[in-house]
């Protein structure tokens, strides 16, 4: 019978905050509950039914009590709400210098990819003391990546990137669980995160890799012939991708969109969804050809492209070459 912890370890920057809020709640609600139990037992014993105490004396406790236990709980609860929200904001605000790691959930295993190219299954090596941002999507059903000792969790949705970040403050090997029921061996979809000293982490990184994620992405960029349309000098049939990440660009139909992970993914898998303004919808769909890992590599490559400093005209105003072939796009008849 191994030792059984009654309280989880704190191994992340946000863990003390969550535990603080948790213990505050335990104390406050515990006190109120204890008060109620004691009062009940005291009344149950003091005013128990005896021959001389057959009918209750109709004295009422003061009516002001009613107001107090309506307003007081409301104030306490709003306080709890505010405390909970502050911690929640801290969990949602991803620091800008975070180490980017990509995760893919698929039925009953976790796959992690580091920017330097390492690929791991059900294991994640991270440096201690540095914020790590995990961008994740699922290949099939909904999973949920949960690091109990870091007190962070987020559902991993199919077809949509979501992020989760933590900053490990303690080295060691800790649990990774899937928290959203996902089928037969949902309980087998577990793993461990290994938090290492930065030096050990560098040594682990150096061990065997086939080039950084971005470099792998570049190979795929050529393999899928993306470079025939997406040229850097803005003369290609597709928009220039260099330096586009994070910018806001207009799309057909007047709206504009922030170029983030989800937009890149959607433009690869369903290019017709949001077409960059001034361009023809000629890009074929890559749905089913590009795997989740390749998507992550391509995205890492696109994000790594530096904004072009050359004198070429800024990408937005470049005039697209009229496309040779006439496309039989169903033009909308209704104005």
């Amino acid at each position, binding site marked *: 019978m191994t030792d059984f912890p009654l309280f989880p370890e704190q191994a992340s920057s946000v863990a003390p905050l969550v535990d603080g809020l948790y213990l505050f709640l335990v104390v406050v609600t515990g006190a109120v509950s204890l008060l109620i139990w004691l009062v009940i037992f005291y009344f149950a014993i003091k005013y128990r039914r005896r021959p001389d105490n057959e009918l209750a004396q109709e004295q009422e406790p003061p009516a002001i009590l009613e107001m107090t236990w309506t307003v007081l709980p409301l104030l306490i609860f709003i306080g709890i709400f505010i405390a909970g929200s502050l911690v929640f904001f801290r969990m949602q*605000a991803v620091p800008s210098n975070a180490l980017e790691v990509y995760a893919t959930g698929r039925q009953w295993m976790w796959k992690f990819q580091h920017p330097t190219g390492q690929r791991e299954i059900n294991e994640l090596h991270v440096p201690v003391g540095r914020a790590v941002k995990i961008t994740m999507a699922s290949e099939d059903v909904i999973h949920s990546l949960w690091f109990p000792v870091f007190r962070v969790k987020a559902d991993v949705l199919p077809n949509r990137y979501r992020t989760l970040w933590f900053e490990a403050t303690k080295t060691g090997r800790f649990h990774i669980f899937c928290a959203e029921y996902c089928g037969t061996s949902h309980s087998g979809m577990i793993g461990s995160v290994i938090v290492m000293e930065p030096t050990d982490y560098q040594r682990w990184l150096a061990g065997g890799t086939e080039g950084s994620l971005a470099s792998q992405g570049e190979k795929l960029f050529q393999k899928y012939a993306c470079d025939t349309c997406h040229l850097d000098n803005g003369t290609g049939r597709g928009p220039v991708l260099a330096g586009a990440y994070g910018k806001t660009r207009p799309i057909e139909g007047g709206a504009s969109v922030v170029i983030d992970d989800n937009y890149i993914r959607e433009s690869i898998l369903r290019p017709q969804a949001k077409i960059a303004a001034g361009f023809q919808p000629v890009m074929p769909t890559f749905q089913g050809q590009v795997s989740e890992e390749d998507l992550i590599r391509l995205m890492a490559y696109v994000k790594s492209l530096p904004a072009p400093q050359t004198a070429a005209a800024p990408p937005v105003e470049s005039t697209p070459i009229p496309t040779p072939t006439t496309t039989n796009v169903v033009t909308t008849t209704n*104005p």
Partner: protein
Amino acid sequence: MATSHNPDHVDHIGHAPAHHRSSLLSYFAVFMTLMVLTVVTVWVSRINLGDLNTPVAMAIAIVKATVVILWFMHVIHSPRMTWIVVISSFLWLAVMFVLFFADYMTRGWPLS
């Protein structure tokens, strides 16, 4: 103690059913209103008001629905309780729409 109906006989409204009978004319007037509004719906949908098309179409549909509820369904002569039921069911529907779109509208918003 005879159990005759004692005076503060609350909420036992009368004996015969609420005996209100709307005039024939009002039914035909309502019918004509609905016809006109249907034509307006189709006509408005042909004009391209951009984002305004949906709210306008919905407004006309709500007007038509209110007309049917008040006159065809006799809510206008009905006791207070019927009003409460009708209004609360649309109120619950509004709660559903508002809180659904509270999520869908704010999904893109960046953290402050």
